[in-house]
């Protein structure tokens, strides 16, 4: 109930306040490439109701944090949020706003296998290079009755640094001590013992699509739009969960958000949680000296958190649970 009223207020605020402003206000933001499609969509839709132009540059999380710290943009965006150390460098203060969320799926190319299940050991084993054949007992164990081919596994991974790799390796490190010690979490995959690199989600998607026996990790939207087969992944409570907007939302809803709203479900505990799910954050300054800019920015972020969530599923993102939206809006209200 609370959320509905918030949504109503949000859209009202967005449309009422900005319809009157004659001069086109401009906002610039930069950062993560993973949420870029939805931010750009919000910008396009928001311009229609407010005539405010929001220019979002997809430059990567690291560059987003850098530009935000230097003050060359009005807001930043990052899949890795910002560390306390990084936030200390911003004199105006930082407010982190979880803006959208997504799941990373394990996509594979085995035409005859419809519903592949991967145990935690098998998943880590594949990306460590220990499991090299599809009919390996470690995979077969969880897929009884499925005829697994005697085919080598070819791993597809990202060749560019990315937040997607960061989140995926964070999960692998959480479920496998061996992965944690030998490779560790990172946004690059150069240290991985196996794999062909593709540039961007599209590159990995193409690799998986072209190569029988391939397996790779991509954001849900890419796998969904390209009709890739997605493996069910075993979560902490031992259940095999298919990646869907619902299973991702379950993960997010079970999270207890801390005061700074920065949290990763590295290895969520809920029974029906999809384990590789993450928020992505907008970074705002605590204080904006320009009142018009502040108003425009608050309008845009409010729009994204409320009406903007409606396009999430269509674009392959997970709509934020009501509890998260509420906390995010509360955090937004502290921006002055």
């Amino acid at each position, binding site marked *: 109930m609370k959320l509905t009223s918030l949504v109503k207020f949000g859209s009202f605020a967005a449309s009422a306040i900005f319809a009157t402003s004659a001069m086109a206000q401009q906002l610039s933001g930069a950062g993560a490439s993973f949420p870029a499609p939805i931010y750009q969509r919000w910008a396009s839709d928001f311009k229609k109701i407010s005539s405010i132009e929001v220019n979002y540059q997809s430059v990567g999380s*690291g*560059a987003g944090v850098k530009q935000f710290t230097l003050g060359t943009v009005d807001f930043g965006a990052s899949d890795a949020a910002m560390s306390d150390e990084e936030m200390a460098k911003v004199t105006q203060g930082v407010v982190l706003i979880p803006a959208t969320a997504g799941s990373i799926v394990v996509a594979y190319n085995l035409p005859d296998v419809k519903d592949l299940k991967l145990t935690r050991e098998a998943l880590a084993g594949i990306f460590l290079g220990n499991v090299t054949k599809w009919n390996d007992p470690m995979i077969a164990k969880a897929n009884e009755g499925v005829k697994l081919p005697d085919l080598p596994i070819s791993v597809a991974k990202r060749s560019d*640094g990315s937040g997607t790799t960061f989140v995926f390796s964070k999960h692998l490190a959480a479920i496998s001590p061996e992965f944690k010690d030998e490779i560790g979490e990172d946004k*690059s995959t150069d240290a991985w013992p196996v794999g*062909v690199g593709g*540039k961007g989600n599209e590159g990995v998607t193409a*690799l998986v699509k072209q190569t029988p026996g391939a397996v790779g990790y991509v954001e849900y939207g890419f796998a969904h739009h390209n009709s890739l087969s997605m493996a069910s992944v075993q979560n902490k409570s031992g259940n095999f969960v298919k990646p869907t907007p619902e299973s991702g939302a379950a993960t997010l809803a079970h999270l207890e958000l801390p005061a700074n709203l920065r949290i990763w479900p590295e290895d969520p505990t809920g029974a029906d949680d999809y384990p590789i799910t993450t928020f992505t954050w907008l970074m705002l300054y605590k204080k904006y000296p320009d009142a018009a800019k502040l108003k425009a920015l608050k309008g845009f972020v409010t729009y994204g958190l409320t009406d903007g969530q409606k396009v999430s599923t269509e674009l392959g993102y997970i709509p934020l649970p009501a509890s998260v939206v509420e906390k995010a809006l509360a955090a937004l209200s502290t921006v002055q």
Partner: protein
Amino acid sequence: METPAIQQGGIKEFRKGTDFFRILCWVASAATVATLAWILVEITRQAWPAIEKFGFGFVTGARWLPNREVFGVLPFLVGTATSSLIALVFALPLGLAVAIFLSEDFLPLPVRQVVRFTVEMLAAIPSVVYGLWGIFVVIPLVQQFGSWAMVACKDIPVLKEIFAGPAYGNSLLTASLVLALMILPTITAISRTALVAVPGTLREGAYALGSTRWEAILGVILPTAAPGIVAATILALGRAMGETMAIAMLIGNSSRLSWSLLSPAGTLAGLLANQFGEAEGLQMNSLMLAALLLVILTLFVNMAGEAVLRYTEKQTAGIR
């Protein structure tokens, strides 16, 4: 210019103009030369922390691990060299054949003009479109060929290494094939110019001695046009080494060394395109050092080309 016809004041004015314009042209020339120096100095400056840290080990290091701050570009150097050389192996005979076809009268002029226009259009196609096309067309072909070749060559000593499986679509071979296509217009255009420039009297002389068309081509025309063809080859090699977008989409971007043509590889330019966007700190310095190596390599190739070109020009000056 002693010009008594012009009045004194006029001369002074012209002199002033002359001098000023001459200085302007001198400054522009100096700036052009300085541009190259500036590029080298600036990239070296940005790469300095990596040079200090790794020294020569950067070139011989076979591992590129950003999260461990270990940076070695050997695999990318090898990938750059092999992909460009293999591309040349494919492109040179084809490009030369097209150039000969265009400069001879096997088929009527309109047909040749269509062929020439089509080849020239190839040069107009952006690299990223080659990449897309490669994914659609070349990768499936290479995969089929690779699956066959790795079985067919598995008992032949050297070939079994070169065609070792598994046959990935994104591979050195795929990238080299598309590269070959991309450098074809360069080879064809410059070789054709060289062939056309061969004096008609030489050909007539050959015919007069009773040689057939191909005896004239192979014995007289090609040797005479050799400097131009060498220039074409070298310019093409330079272009292949620096080609970026299509390669990044097709080569598989692996930082591991392999003998197999069917394995993924990486190039210096591809490394830059992949990692420059999100790099920071020492990784950025290391990428700048990789860029410096790429510049030095291409400069070296072009200098070698110039030298060969001058030498061959001297050799053939007499018959020209």
